[in-house]
């Protein structure tokens, strides 16, 4: 019933795969995971089960199951927390289109915010794809988003559509390369398994059915890179709290666009990574973003995090590329050098290096805008609303919609403000700088 987890493990696929599981594991270095089977990763004791899901109803998850399981969940979290000598944060992996992950998930986020106000809450949440089969997903997503805006410290939204697109692009590329072989899908998969990048056996199932294995493997890599500093040493460690600290300039603008590079290697080891400079360039390409149609290079950056893993990468490689990127990207005028870099010495399995880019970019509002449209489409007709009003006031829908719009607006305003700066005002020209001269506030 649940897909949340507070884990730092090499492989997070099962967290997304195995339904009806609530996982808690503390954020400490845990290398034993590397060698073990999945079942060893997650403690059975930390699993909370229920006979049925939330029926794709946010309100049932949030307001029904939430209070019902509150004590049990808090108890298990406390047990896990007590084992930690350095609690880095709570990590949530959930979809926001369904009922449980979205409803109960957001309930827990809120609950933990009350109990552990100084511990950061990270959320990697899956936004529904365009042809999502859950009819009520726009409602659920909107209601969840509201909680994420108010109670999460940092959110990495992931768009299922973008994941599908990337996977099919990789398959295409692969097909071009390996024209001779007929059974493309099986072949890629076989490589996969042999190579250990993805260990899930999905044999005997057709291509049309969505299993999310490869999609989830991308997300797993994101989470994996994000948390690598906790597990391995590096020249420039980046703790989880450093990410929020550096990339979130205003409390409500905490949605980060993520992208991986080299990406093909994640899904298919046959695509060898090119050089490190290429990797940096690719990371900010439109096609690599985990949100559909988001193009950070055309929008405004508030901040950008680059987390590099690799044993042959030096700080000077990063620095050289940061200088290059700086010329290419558009940054908000008060944060022209808005890069945060990290370097971990341990590359992911089967790779020489890997880069995770986290962008706090105004283009992220597109995903909210799309959600808003989908929401309004069904909300205008008030379909399914009665399932929700069983648990909550209808006005809560309007409240959440408002909240979503206010976030969209704040990103928009940021862009407008930046565009309206006097010509050359983006630089540090003497005259413009004068208006920013410090004057003590008395």
């Amino acid at each position, binding site marked *: 019933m649940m897909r949340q987890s507070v884990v730092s493990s090499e492989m997070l696929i099962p967290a997304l795969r195995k339904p009806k599981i609530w996982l808690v594991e503390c954020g400490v270095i845990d290398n034993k995971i590397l060698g073990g089977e999945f079942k060893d990763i997650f403690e059975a004791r930390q699993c909370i089960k229920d006979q049925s899901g939330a029926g794709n109803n946010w309100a049932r998850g949030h307001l029904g199951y939430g209070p019902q399981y509150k004590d049990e969940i808090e108890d298990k979290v406390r047990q896990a927390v007590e084992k930690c000598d350095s609690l880095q944060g709570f990590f949530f992996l959930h979809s926001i289109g369904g009922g449980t992950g979205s409803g109960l998930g957001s309930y827990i986020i809120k609950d933990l915010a009350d109990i552990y106000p*100084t511990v950061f809450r990270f959320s990697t949440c899956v936004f529904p794809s365009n042809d999502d089969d859950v009819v009520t997903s726009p409602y659920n997503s909107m209601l969840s988003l509201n909680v994420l805006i108010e109670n999460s410290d940092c959110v990495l939204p992931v768009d299922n559509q973008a994941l599908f697109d990337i996977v099919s692009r990789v398959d295409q590329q692969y097909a071009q390369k390996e024209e001779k072989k007929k059974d493309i899908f099986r072949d890629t998969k076989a490589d996969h398994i042999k190579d250990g990048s993805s260990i899930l056996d999905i044999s005997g199932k057709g291509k049309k059915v969505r299993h999310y294995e490869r999609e989830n493997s991308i997300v797993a890599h994101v989470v994996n890179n994000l948390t690598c500093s906790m597990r391995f040493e590096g020249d420039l460690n980046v703790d989880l*709290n450093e990410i929020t*600290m*550096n990339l979130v300039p205003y409390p409500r603008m905490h949605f980060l666009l993520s992208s991986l590079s080299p990406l093909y290697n994640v899904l298919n080891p046959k695509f060898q990574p090119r050089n490190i400079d290429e990797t940096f360039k690719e990371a900010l390409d439109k096609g690599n973003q985990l949100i559909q149609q988001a193009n950070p290079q055309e929008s405004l950056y508030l901040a950008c995090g680059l987390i590099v893993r690799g044993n042959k990468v030096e700080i000077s490689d990063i*620095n050289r590329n*940061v200088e290059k990127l700086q010329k290419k990207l558009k940054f908000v005028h008060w*944060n022209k050098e808005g*890069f945060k870099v990290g370097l971990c010495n341990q590359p992911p399995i089967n790779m020489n290096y890997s880069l995770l880019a986290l962008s706090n970019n105004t283009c992220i509002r597109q995903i909210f805008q799309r959600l808003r449209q989908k929401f309004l489409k069904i909300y205008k007709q008030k379909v399914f609303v009665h399932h929700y009003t069983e648990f909550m006031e209808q006005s809560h829908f309007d409240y959440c919609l408002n909240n979503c719009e206010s976030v969209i607006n704040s990103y928009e305003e940021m862009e407008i403000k930046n565009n309206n700066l006097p010509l050359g005002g983006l630089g540090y020209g003497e005259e413009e700088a004068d208006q920013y001269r410090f004057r003590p506030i008395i």
Partner: protein
Amino acid sequence: MEPKVVQKCLLDSAKSHSNGESLWQYDKKYSYHKQSGSGNNWALGYLYYSQEEYEETHSRIQSLLESLDYFGGFQVFSSLAGGTGSGLGAHIVERLREDFSKSNMMNVAVWPYQSGEVILQNYNVLLTLNSLIQDSDGVIPIYNDEIMFVCRELLKNKRPSYKVMNTVIAQQLLSVMFPFSNSTKDKMSLWSGSNSNILSEIVRQLCIYPQFKLLSLKNIPQCDNKTIEFNTDLWEGMIQRIRQMIITNGNEHKINWSIKAENPSTYSTKFIKSLSHLMVIRGDKVFDLPGSFESDYFGIGSLYTKKYGGSVDNKYAYFRDSHRIHGHEKSIGVLSNNQSHCQILESTLRKATMMFHEKAFLHHYEKFGVNADKFNEMFLTCETTLAEYKGL
């Protein structure tokens, strides 16, 4: 702060000690760590980790001091951009100043890359400087950009690691800080003090005015060990070069000769005026140099600001040491108190002010008790320091 970071330091130093690369190693007894860093949050380092951490470090420092037979002062190394080295570092310096008010206190502070590594670097740099300017005797900023440049252009290392960069930093510092051992002391009538405590000398010579505490370090040669044997420099050429590096704030790779030291009519805003210098000349036969060698090049009034009067002779101190350092037959290191930091301080201030103007990131600092008042104080101190230096 993180156990793995501290342990790696201890381990690396023990490793290079046991395989003969270095003569010393860190003593675990005097190390201290917590479970996590400060997440680049200066406020977290400065205010949140404070009481308990200081007591822990204080007791270690105390026991270390008791084991020494001679104590010259504190030399604190930290970066300016992060949260622990800068925030907690500033806090510790502040407290050490209270507890050991008579000891010398010198800070070596690593300035982040200008292209940006930590987004809050400008806030963190200024907050730290604000503290250090008040509590330390002198601060020697080291610029990662400059060190990188030295590695690339002079050492021909296109992809230097932190380790390589740290070696360069250590060598630069040693060019001045390395203890003098005057085997020919009788010849050293120039040698003023009886104890060879370089920190005291630095404080006495360079840190006279409370509003001027930023020191800058230049040394030559910076070349690679391999090219040492081909080094046919004359002392005269070298001292001229380093003087030019100082007045133009340049480095050895590309020296700008268009500004003339002796000729005040070429004074431009680019000319770096100094309050004072401290010079150490090391190498073979240094005592054969004429007695007026240093004064010929540094005893020139146009190098110094006129603002505080005084005789030119008091504005530079120099020491000779007949030992080679890093295998160099001849080498010169100069520590100066001068205008060289103005440019970077000004641009850092400007960037931080812009960010402050938009109130960006302030909520992270407020969470740990550093509010707008502290920022105002910080801007005031740093703007004042900048203005004082520019006014020289």
